């Protein structure tokens, strides 16, 4: 698109951010009283809601078309479902869940959280994570992972560490962190990274575009730094929530 430069000469992006700057993040835990754990996050204009049920008895019903949830004898089963609201994108979406992208996203979320949740502690049970995107402005996977982390923490399910995610791209020799929809639609390479910050272990790394391997390290580094920044913010939210609940319950 002529005239739309993702990175200006002075180093500013389309929405005025610097190359490595994140969008404003606001999060809240415990938004639903009826679920075991719930959280809501806003990353810029991307809004995601996550709800966790569990651990509970694994049920042998057909969850999503084709997959059958069965109890595992030595660990808990993690079941993720991703859905985006019909009003979440610019054009109204016809199928909120059950389409290919939602199934793939659900699978990616499941892989991410199986790496982080200590499933050995709860054999034969099932943990359900439902994520819904209310407004999609780029970085939906990252927002979902961050919201789901907070929701799992709210439910009291033991986890190895936070799972913080961020997306990154590459434009004009500079790596950009936390892409918005405009930047994603421009067609450049984009990478999604989910990280366990304390140990630096990667839970999931996903990219489906062409990127020269010389640039990979730079982009990965930018994504990792952004994920650590996200961790700082989420950590603050969780500590505030725990402190408040602790005061209310009394010493």
């Amino acid at each position: 698109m002529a005239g739309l430069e993702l990175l200006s000469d002075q180093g500013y992006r389309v929405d005025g951010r610097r190359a490595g700057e994140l969008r404003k993040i606001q999060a809240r835990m415990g938004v639903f009283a009826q679920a075991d754990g719930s959280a809501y996050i806003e990353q810029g204009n991307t809004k995601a809601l996550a709800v966790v049920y569990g651990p509970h008895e694994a049920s042998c019903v057909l969850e999503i078309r084709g997959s059958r949830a069965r109890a595992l004898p030595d660990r808990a089963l993690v079941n993720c479902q991703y859905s985006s609201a019909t009003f979440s994108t610019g054009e109204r979406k016809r199928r909120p869940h059950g389409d290919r992208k939602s199934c793939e996203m659900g699978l990616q979320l499941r892989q991410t959280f199986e790496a982080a949740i200590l499933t050995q502690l709860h054999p034969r049970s099932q943990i359900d994570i439902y994520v819904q995107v209310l407004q999609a402005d780029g970085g939906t996977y990252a927002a979902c992972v961050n919201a789901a982390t907070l929701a799992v923490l709210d439910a009291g399910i033991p986890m190895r560490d936070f799972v913080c995610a961020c997306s990154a791209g590459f434009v004009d020799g500079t790596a950009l962190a936390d892409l918005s929809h405009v930047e994603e639609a421009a067609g450049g390479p984009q990478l999604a990274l989910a990280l366990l910050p304390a140990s630096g272990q990667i839970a999931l790394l996903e990219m489906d575009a062409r990127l020269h391997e010389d640039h990979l390290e730079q982009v990965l580094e930018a994504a990792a730094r952004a994920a650590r920044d996200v961790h700082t913010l989420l950590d603050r939210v969780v500590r505030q929530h725990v402190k408040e609940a602790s005061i209310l319950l009394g010493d």
Partner: protein
Amino acid sequence: MAMEMRLPVPRKPVSESLGRETKKHLVVPGDTITTDTGFMRGHGTYMGEEKLIASVAGPVERVNKLICVKALKTRYNGEVGDIVVGRITEVQQKRWKVETNSRLDSVLLLSSMNLPGGELVRVSGWYCMILGGSKRERRVRDLLLGSDFSDVAISVFQRRRSAEDELAMRGFLQEGDLISAEVQAVFSDGAVSLHTRSLKYGKLGQGVLVQVSPSLVKRQKTHFHDLPCGASVILGNNGFIWIYPTREHKEEDAGGFIANLEPVSLADREVISRLRNCIVSLVTQRMLLYDTSILYCYEASLPHQIKDILKPEVLEEIVMETRQRLLEQEG
């Protein structure tokens, strides 16, 4: 029909109005609790590279050499002797599966249930079977057991479960029924085995169920309370709270299997609704639930209408009053 609407307002954290600070050490997952290897690790922690790391978010509790982190909200962890209220989810071959807000469904074995009729009594070496479960037979049994036969050895068994009992299981408890029971044993994977071996446990009749977090129910000597306001409450340790009208005469027909379906009077229903709203308001402010706190909240809510109790400003006022009264009472 009158409708009330209100706009969203920023929520003010309640802890500010309390003005208290917490002295506990709070951790989040991934935090290192200690690098000292001399400690034993308890719940909520795991060992990683010579360090003890927290796996849930909450305060650290240290008892001598044991460190554990207590999560704010968990599913119910069964302990022997707890009273629970549960819902039957499945009827299997010799047992029922009961949902008790825990990680795995609890189990109620057919042999752990007091079946109406057919108690086997052994009197000084002789077995005699008391058939039937009606009042007269129960009186005979109580007489035998209660009287001062000091030279006679008496023990009571439940009769062995037969195939007819198995087939009749659905007649006792079906899917969707609510029961009150006590925890008999805990299996190694955390599943809980229940029993209803006393007359005060059994199928629950008419009433209201409130589901709260198990951490908000205070452990007490007794969990069955008859409140002076006119209703009775069962505070299940698993967070299920059952509010029901107090029966004037205690009938114990058939050990609590026949649900009493007499119509409940309007006064009783109002008391029960008010109690339910009071419990919900206490839970939103994360106060511990026990008979005194529920009663004080009920009394504080009397000036308001039942449906107004859940409005945010009324809720805060009532719970603040309850909190003050409880503080005064303590000391």
